[in-house]
């Protein structure tokens, strides 16, 4: 076997030599799937764009795995005692990839003009919380808030608020600016080439402001659409890093056990996604709390975690992930108990109406999960029919409330005020957004608690309010929480310091190096 491999290599001597030469500089091959539509991170925030562009662009802050703010483009910061004024001091000598200096004007332009117009998560923060953003001097920025908003300090990572070059975008139509295809950031890597359908090639930014970084010369992000083929590509050495979700969960154990392969579930602290089934509360049996409680008892969530996800993740107790701040375990707990489920369902007066369960079109594992949940529900006499759709169909059906139940997962984004409340507050009931309050849950007490907790500076008071919200929500079950997802990144062990931040691979290549 080995012999024939070498024989073949010898026959293709020229090709083989070229290959070895390229490997001599440090090169890393990473899977990217699906191929991102765009790398301009201000305009596109889908997962693959973030994974790559977080190494091209930078935010004011980075976060360690405990979600504590770390210097990035901001070297240091001060927060006034009343919690209303934030002053950021910028790094010196930072240059955009085109050689122009990065200054406080760029920060003001990014936060106050560019992202305010185009970034769906930044916009509500500027519109509702921020009174002004101004450049004090070329290296100092001052942000003044309308009211205290503690979560601001967790909202400044590269995907939530990337810094955009003012000299390229000012006065242009942001979405059609031709520069969108040649992203210019301040980050450790520059875009060298993008061969559509094949790979994205990043090279080291030799003028990077942090001396001695980055250490890896080139990164190739390879587009490989099929999960089984990705696993083979890692095993045969074509690929060095498999970001979370690249391979079938059953392959995670097998691939991590290969010689020279390592696995980590770190690097997802910022996202800490919780998967759930959103429920359309507007009409029918699902509008009844008792019925939903019955469903929660009927779904074998441990089976989901142990079998479907092959042991990855944890069964959640409520809306706030146990890995993030303000989590409170003292809530209503739902065990897997089909008998109790039948009882509650009978009590609710359910008459066998068909309930449509919309699958999430993100690959085999979500299909298996939907099948398992449907079987659980059929077992207690709930008539469930699966609906499948592609990404576009799922987005539209979920955004336009055209579902009875739909799978979804949402990032927690470091603070309940940013990542959690959006799914439960009544002000976020609006068509067009699959990550809003799609089920139509409305409870004035919950609205008030979330609002008060967000505007409160005292952590203990915030905790009390979030604890109360968690109790109410676990009783009323506006969504059925299934899993606190754990996301495995598989990589070659000779790549060091790849995952050191709360967003992992997404900005990990700044500090990574290869032995």
């Amino acid at each position, binding site marked *: 076997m080995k012999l024939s491999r070498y024989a073949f290599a010898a026959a293709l001597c020229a090709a083989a030599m070229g290959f070895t030469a390229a490997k001599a500089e440090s090169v890393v091959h990473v899977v990217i799937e699906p191929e991102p539509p765009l790398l301009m991170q201000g305009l596109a925030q889908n997962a693959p764009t973030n994974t790559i562009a977080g190494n091209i662009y930078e935010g004011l802050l980075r976060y360690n795995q405990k979600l504590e703010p770390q210097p990035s483009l901001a070297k240091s910061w001060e927060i006034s005692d009343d919690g209303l004024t934030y002053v950021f001091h910028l790094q010196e000598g930072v240059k955009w990839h085109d050689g122009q200096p990065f200054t406080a004007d760029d920060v003001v332009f990014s936060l106050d003009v560019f992202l305010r117009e185009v970034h769906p998560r930044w916009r509500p923060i500027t519109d509702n919380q921020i009174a002004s953003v101004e450049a004090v001097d070329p290296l100092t920025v001052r942000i003044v808030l309308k009211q205290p908003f503690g979560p601001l300090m967790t909202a400044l990572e590269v995907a939530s608020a990337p810094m955009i070059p003012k000299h390229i975008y000012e006065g242009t139509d942001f979405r059609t600016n031709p520069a969108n295809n040649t992203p210019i950031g301040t980050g450790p890597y520059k875009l060298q080439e993008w061969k559509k359908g094949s790979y994205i090639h990043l090279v080291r930014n030799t003028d990077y402001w942090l001396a001695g970084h980055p250490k890896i010369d080139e990164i190739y992000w390879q587009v490989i659409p099929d*999960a*089984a083929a990705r*696993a083979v590509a890692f095993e045969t050495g074509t690929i060095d890093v498999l970001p979370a979700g690249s391979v079938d969960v059953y392959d995670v154990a097998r691939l991590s056990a290969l010689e020279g392969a390592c696995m980590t579930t770190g690097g997802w602290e910022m996202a800490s996604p919780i998967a759930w089934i959103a429920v359309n509360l507007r009409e029918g049996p699902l509008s009844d709390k008792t019925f939903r409680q019955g469903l929660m008892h009927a779904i074998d969530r441990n089976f989901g975690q142990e*079998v479907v996800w092959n042991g990855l993740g944890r069964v959640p107790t409520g809306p706030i992930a146990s890995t993030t701040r303000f989590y409170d375990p003292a809530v209503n707990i739902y065990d897997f108990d089909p008998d109790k489920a039948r009882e509650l369902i009978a009590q609710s007066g359910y008459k066998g109406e068909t309930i449509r369960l919309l*699958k999430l079109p993100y690959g*085999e594992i979500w*299909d298996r999960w939907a099948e*398992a949940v449907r*079987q659980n529900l059929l077992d207690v006499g709930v008539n469930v029919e699966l609906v*499948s759709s592609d990404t576009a169909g799922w987005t539209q059906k979920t955004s336009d409330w055209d579902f009875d139940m739909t799978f979804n997962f949402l990032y927690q984004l470091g603070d309940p005020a940013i990542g959690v409340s959006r799914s439960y507050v009544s002000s976020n009931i609006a068509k067009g957004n699959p990550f809003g309050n799609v089920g139509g849950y409305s409870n004035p007490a919950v609205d008030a608690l979330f609002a008060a907790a967000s505007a409160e500076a005292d952590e203990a008071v915030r905790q009390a309010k979030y604890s109360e919200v968690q109790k109410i929500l676990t009783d009323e079950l506006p969504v059925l929480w299934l899993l606190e997802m754990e996301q495995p990144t598989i990589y070659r062990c000779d790549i060091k310091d790849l995952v050191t931040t709360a967003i992992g691979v997404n900005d990990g290549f700044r500090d990574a190096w290869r032995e």
Partner: protein
Amino acid sequence: MIAFLKRFSRNPAAVVGLVILVLVVAFAILAPLLYPNSPWKPVQRPFLAPFAQAGFPMGTDTLGRDVAAGLVHGARVSLQIGVVSTIVALLIGVPLGAIAGYSGGWVDDLLMRFTEFFQTIPSFALAIVMVAILQPQLGSIILAIGVVSWPPVARLVRGEVLSLRSREYVQAAITIGQSTPRIIFSQILPNTIAPIIVIGSLMVGTAILLESSLSFLGLGDPNLMSWGYMVGAGRTRLLDSWWISFFPGIAIFLTVLALNLAGEGLNDALNPRLSRGRK
């Protein structure tokens, strides 16, 4: 009829094909008796190898569902999709071809342009788009497969009708003033049945394969366990749990093979003159 059976039975491959087909149909019909439980229900621990546990000759899949149960129930779904979508294709293709062949002239020209039109659009791509648009459900899958597979039928029937039309007995019927529909239905179509059955048997196999491809791309009906679904769902486990996709793969292979063998045998038996001739 007797002569036909004799000729058919002289072809051993065709007989084997027929036997396999009968078995598959029997499994499909008897599925609820053999495996009364839903094939979706997890019944054992996951990834159980074949024969590792009594009663699970084909093992279990990623969720601990019985592969054998899935295979038997899948026979129903796959055959249903194969047969119904073929009927859809025939319902479009036969009348179109017959009208084109019988009428000739501009009608023929127009209908054949229309057929060409459908042959020009890449058919698999068209099927994908149709299923995605109509949402993946049994109905849309059958319709999409039917819509992309009728053109060869139309061409075949047109050719047959064209040659039959010039035969003496048809000419005689025209002379004695029989109505056109009557001539088509009583004189012409019955004589085209043989090639239609042959092409139909081949199309059932193609349809089963097409459904499996759609399923692989995530465009199968999520509520129905077809063989295509099983192969697609098990494909990432080929290395460590080969049985999950191997058995349904073999089932597809055997069925398509049987349909082809039987179809060819049928062809030879129905056309003794052109024995072992055209496809």
